[in-house]
């Protein structure tokens, strides 16, 4: 990738980012001229106006458009490698429909080409998720795409939030994967039943442990440890959010039914037919991570994908983020910016679109104390564009993660 410079080009310095159009995605008005001061990897200050003097001691970066680092709210990039050969596919442990005990942290490869590729298109944070094959797929985590610790970053250095969610897959894929092996689930009914049963078991498991602890913890009566049930207990108790990856409207409805039944803290991912059931989603108060819209119509459940989905969900008052999800073939990853650009061209306004990729995503994922806007004290994750961020012919000129330049467009 000759256009990419994937290692941090500098250690964190003090930067003054001067913008013609500054989108802080914070409370202040958006799109006017302004200045962002960066010190020690954090946003030191943000100043609006055209005639701001840059204080001494800062290296100046000038940009036509400046936004916070973009957040891909749900993707298998990092665990599903670019080569798409068995050696680099670590997203789907499809040996068992319930793999609640697996965690993406143990598959993540920060050196994968795609993991670094998306950084060059402005993505500084990813929620990395297991793939689409298992009804109970495992635990997701939130990671930076790069950082000041380059060239080699361990997963721990990139981690923003571990155990961000437990992923549940409904719809066509799990039943196709297991049904073809004559194993459960063969039907949607069974997928739902397996999830219900696991959540019930997890609830009872937690009760056993709570009871034992309450009863003075007699070592002889200690309940058996079960790593799957332990992982699901957090979901059942509402501590760990659940993400239901769903496409068809009736599968969305099933997710809401299970979420309501078990009082889960949950959100929806992909949500291809969300626009057809948006009133129900709004009533349930569920945030949506809106899936890629440039994908082929690979199966029946995505046949009704529309470029207007994000806008139609947003109009209904549903909090939205944008996600690229999982790709099984060429290309092995979607570009968050392009997916959102098409939504913008089809009715989603520029500001709502930027919000969906930044502060809304951060709020939905519970990381808005650290990232998602250019606000004092937050991580200095910044994207510098030479034009309208959504225009096809614009360029990302620079990407900063925690105050370090991780991508610089070649002149």
């Amino acid at each position, binding site marked *: *990738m*000759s*256009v990419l410079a994937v290692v941090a080009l500098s250690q964190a310095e003090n930067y003054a980012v001067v913008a013609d159009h500054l989108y802080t995605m914070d409370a202040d008005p958006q799109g006017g001229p302004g200045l962002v001061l960066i010190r020690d990897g954090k946003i030191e200050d943000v100043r609006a106006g055209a005639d701001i003097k840059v204080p001494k001691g800062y290296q100046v970066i000038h940009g036509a458009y400046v936004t916070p680092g973009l957040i891909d709210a749900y993707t298998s990039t990092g665990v599903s*490698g*670019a*080569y*798409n*050969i068995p050696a680099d596919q670590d997203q789907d442990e499809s040996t068992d429909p319930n793999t609640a005990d697996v965690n993406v942290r143990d598959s993540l490869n920060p050196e994968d*080409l*795609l993991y670094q*590729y*998306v950084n060059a298109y402005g993505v500084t944070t990813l929620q990395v998720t297991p793939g689409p094959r298992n009804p109970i797929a495992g635990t997701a985590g939130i990671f930076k795409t790069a950082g000041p610790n380059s060239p080699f970053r361990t997963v721990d250095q990139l981690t923003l939030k571990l155990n961000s969610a437990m992923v549940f897959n409904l719809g066509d894929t799990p039943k196709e994967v297991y049904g073809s092996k004559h194993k459960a689930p063969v039907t949607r009914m069974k997928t739902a039943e397996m999830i219900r049963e696991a959540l019930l078991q997890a609830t009872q498991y937690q009760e056993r442990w709570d009871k034992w602890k309450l009863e003075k913890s007699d070592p002889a009566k200690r309940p058996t440890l079960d790593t799957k049930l332990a992982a699901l207990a957090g979901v059942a108790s509402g501590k760990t959010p659940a993400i239901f990856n769903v496409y068809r409207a009736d599968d969305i409805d099933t997710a809401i039914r299970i979420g309501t039944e078990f009082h889960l803290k949950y959100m929806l991912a992909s949500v291809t*037919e969300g*626009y*057809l059931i*948006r009133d129900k989603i709004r009533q349930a108060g569920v945030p949506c991570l809106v899936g890629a*819209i*440039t994908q*082929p*119509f*690979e*199966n*029946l459940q*995505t*046949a*009704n*994908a*529309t*470029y*207007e989905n994000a*806008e*139609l969900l947003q*109009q209904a008052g549903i909090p939205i983020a944008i996600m690229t999800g999982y*790709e099984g*073939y*060429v*290309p*092995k*990853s*979607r*570009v968050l910016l*392009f997916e959102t*650009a*098409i939504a*913008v*061209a*089809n*009715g989603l306004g520029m500001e709502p679109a930027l919000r969906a990729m930044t502060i809304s995503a951060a709020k939905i994922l519970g990381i808005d104390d650290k990232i998602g806007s250019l606000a004092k004290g937050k991580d200095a994750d910044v994207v510098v564009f030479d034009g309208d961020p*959504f*225009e*096809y*012919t*614009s*360029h990302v000129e620079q990407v900063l993660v925690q105050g370090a330049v991780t991508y610089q467009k070649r002149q």
Partner: protein
Amino acid sequence: MQKTKVVLMAAVCLGAAFRSTAAGSQTARDENVLVVEGARILPITSPPIERGVMVVKGGKIVAVGEQGKVEIPPGATVKDAAGKIVMPGIVDSHSHIGIDPNPTVSDSQDANEGSGPIQPALRALDAIDPADPNIRMATAGGITTANIMPGSGNVMGGQTAYVKLRGTTIEQMLIPGTIGGMKMANGTNPKNYGSREQAPMTRMATAALARGIFAKAQDYKAKWDAYNKAVTANDKTAKAPDRDLGLEAVGQILDGKRVVHNHTHRADDVMTVLRLADEFHYRVVVHHGTESCDVADELAKRHIGVTFTMIDAPGGKPETINFSISCPARLEKAGVKVAFNTDDPITNSRLLLRSAALAVRGGMSEDAAMKGLTIYPAEMLDLQGRVGSLERGKDADFIVLSGPPLSVYTHVLETWIEGGKVFDRSNPVDLRYATGGFNVISRYPQPQGGGQ
């Protein structure tokens, strides 16, 4: 093809009420004169005309020029296109619409005849479903002409079909006088036979199988040439060789009548394509050409063009790992003509303008990018005499855009083929082929602000 009523059928689950409202798709080509006036016209093969006029009669362009300088025939239907952009219909030089229909379910997938790697007798036209909604979606993206091809699973995948995106039968779609090209492939995909312990298992065997069929065709041709010569010489004892439909088609390649469309990614695979073409003296177009920019000089000196598939990211298989949006720019600099294709369903036919725009993002000139959507792919299909530019005498295939062609904010407003409108964004049914959601129109929520 005279007086063909142009009706693109709503393919899946559309209620009767919606079928009858698809008026925008039913405009017939006829002898009436249509004048498109006031638009910024991009003829492609000549400079843009700021306030242009285009006169269409009998499905052909009869005049293009500046407003006030072109005579408007009396009785013409005048279409005011002020503030809009008019450019030629887009030519997609590599597509699987109709042969890999939407949605992708195995029953309807007919691109790859996985029963053997050499299939020159196959004709894509026998497997194309004109009712595939992907075809209508392609018109929503401004595509008017397509090269519909078999897939890349075979070394020689079959005969391709050059079509216009109109009509309810493949006969109505086919461009009269064309025989299509021949699909070939090397690199990863044909090697899939290896997993069944069949050839080809290696790139060597892929090339050997290709050589084998061309050698056979040379032999076949020699026999027929000898026979024809004997007949001409009034030799009554001359016996006609047995006909072979596959070898006849390969013979057309050797005769220069049929172009090879060769799927290839890695630079060394591109060189294998060139080596075979040099060896058997045939015309070839490099398809995808992910690493073709690394051997751009070799392509330039042979005057071989590349039709590039602009994907979002590298990978998905090892041979596309070096994908870059800058490859078309590098080819342009070396003097190679570059077209853009959808490879639908790999990229969606509604987004072919985007492919050219991303090449500009990668450093290509706008001029080359626009030619890569129109006249260059037309040349690659030997159709430059009929399509690919707005010139007197060419087919009246054009699109009306809301703004600059390479902007994300621009919508295709109308698509016309041979003087008949096949897509109209203001039509509520057509709109859903542009946005998606055409199966569920009765349940589709009304966006605030109209979704335009």
